[in-house]
């Protein structure tokens, strides 16, 4: 390698870095992510609603001291200070309202920041109740807090149109948010693959069976087809980590990004359905959505 090549490589990396993170993009894909994230968030909040007092009420099963013993010392929850049933209800109601506002895109700059804060504080109140969908939603919401997701498909945008100051120019903040979504989509897919491949069942082709026989949490009963055909069970088992590897890698080259992200819109919800975690699947599909909505490069 000569001196010219050595200088060109860092410059090339710098240009790619600048192009990836700082090329202004249309805010509408992020607006779609905002709507889906808020809808998933409301569904996850719904799963807390009926048992809110049973868990976090004054005489609840998970008192603040128990929650504190289960979380990192850096963890913090506003609910710890809600010492009455009314206070718990109030904090939860505020969270629901914030997610509703995020869904319709009203006061978006404020609620897109409030939503991840309130979501994190709820998860810290009962860390042993949180699942994979909750984790992925936290990531989604923080990415939305960075971008200007209210500049499209929102009440904010409609109000701006009515006042004659509506513009939705491409935004660098939207690009940074989309870039972070892409990074997390790849990291989560890669981490899930590594976690899966630590278990023998993902190598010997039986993992799909062990997912299907969890009769309380499964959403579809596939024990019949898997019991009848070992090949089908093996195929489904090996297809899952294979897809995750392809997703984690294929979301980076421009030539494959859109196709892989679009495949993820179908594959992640299907994996979530098989695993009995449909909201986790939907959240992962949403992480890859901006890449899926991009126009593929022409050859």
């Amino acid at each position, binding site marked *: 390698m000569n001196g010219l090549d050595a200088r060109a490589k860092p410059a090339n990396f710098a240009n790619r*870095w*600048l192009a990836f*993170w700082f090329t202004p993009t249309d805010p509408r894909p992020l607006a779609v992510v905002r709507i889906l994230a808020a809808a998933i968030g409301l569904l*996850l909040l*719904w*799963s*807390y609603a009926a*048992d809110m007092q*049973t*868990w976090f009420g004054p*005489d609840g*099963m*998970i*008192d603040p*001291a*128990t929650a504190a*013993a*289960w*979380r*990192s010392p850096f*963890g*913090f929850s506003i609910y710890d200070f809600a010492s009455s049933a009314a206070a718990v209800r109030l904090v939860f109601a505020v969270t629901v309202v914030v997610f509703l506002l995020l869904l319709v895109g009203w006061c978006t700059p404020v609620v897109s920041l409030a939503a*991840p804060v309130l*979501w*994190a504080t709820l998860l*810290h109140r009962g*860390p*042993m109740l*949180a*699942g*994979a969908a909750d*984790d*992925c939603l*936290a*990531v989604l919401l*923080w990415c939305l807090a960075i971008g200007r997701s209210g500049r499209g498909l929102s009440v904010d945008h409609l109000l701006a149109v009515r006042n004659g100051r509506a513009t939705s120019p491409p935004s660098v903040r939207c690009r*940074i948010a989309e870039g972070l979504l892409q*990074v997390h989509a790849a*990291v*989560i897919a890669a*981490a*899930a693959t*590594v*976690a*899966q491949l*630590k*278990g*023998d*069942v993902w190598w010997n082709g*039986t993992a799909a069976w*062990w*997912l299907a026989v*969890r*009769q*309380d*949490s499964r959403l579809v009963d596939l024990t019949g087809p898997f*019991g009848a055909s070992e090949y089908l*069970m093996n195929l489904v088992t090996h297809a899952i980590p294979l897809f995750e590897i392809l997703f984690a890698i294929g979301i980076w080259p421009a030539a494959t990004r859109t196709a892989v992200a679009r495949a993820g819109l179908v594959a992640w919800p299907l994996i979530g359905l098989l*695993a009995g975690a449909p*909201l986790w699947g939907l959240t992962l599909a949403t992480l890859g959505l901006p890449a899926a909505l991009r126009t593929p490069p022409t050859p």
Partner: protein
Amino acid sequence: MAAQRSSPSAVQTDAVRAAVTVALGVYLVGLLLTVLGNSSSGSSALVRTIKGRLFAPWLVPAWLDLGFEQHLTHGVPEDADHALEIRPTDPMRSEAVLRLPGAFGGERAARWRRLARAIAIGGSGDPAVLAAAVGRGAFPVLGTQDVRVRVLRRPLPERRATADDGDPRQVYAARVRLVDGELQLLPSEPRGEVAPLVRPGEATP
């Protein structure tokens, strides 16, 4: 280009980009370390120390200190469905039973299953503390201050199994009671872990 670079707005833009680049770089390093540091297969003490000292203080409050270890299943008993059962210790009131998640499904049921699993196999905290808190939380519902907390696990049948023995099995049991204002947890040892009573002079089979 040179004129553009020297203009105040261009200089400001470059400064902002530099600051954002540094912030992104720091965050991406933090993301890498949190994924490595939260791996159940273990990571080096150095990774955990750096993550714990530099990144956990600001990633934990945001619920971003995550390992994303979403393995779905490893086919082990711990991956089976768990459920919680709480009933008064008094046998005269044995009809009053809390079975959770009970009949409801979806994500609400999944949260109850996670709670039951956390009591049975632990996690980031002490399962005994959680079992005691859950038992105490059931006192007002069951109208007593002496309850028995059980975690039941539904076994995962083998593919070649001829009979489906799907009845849940007890994997954790403890008595939780309030005596003179003091909360007491009395764990029950599984029968298999209790040594047989041996009396001197008696013939052993």
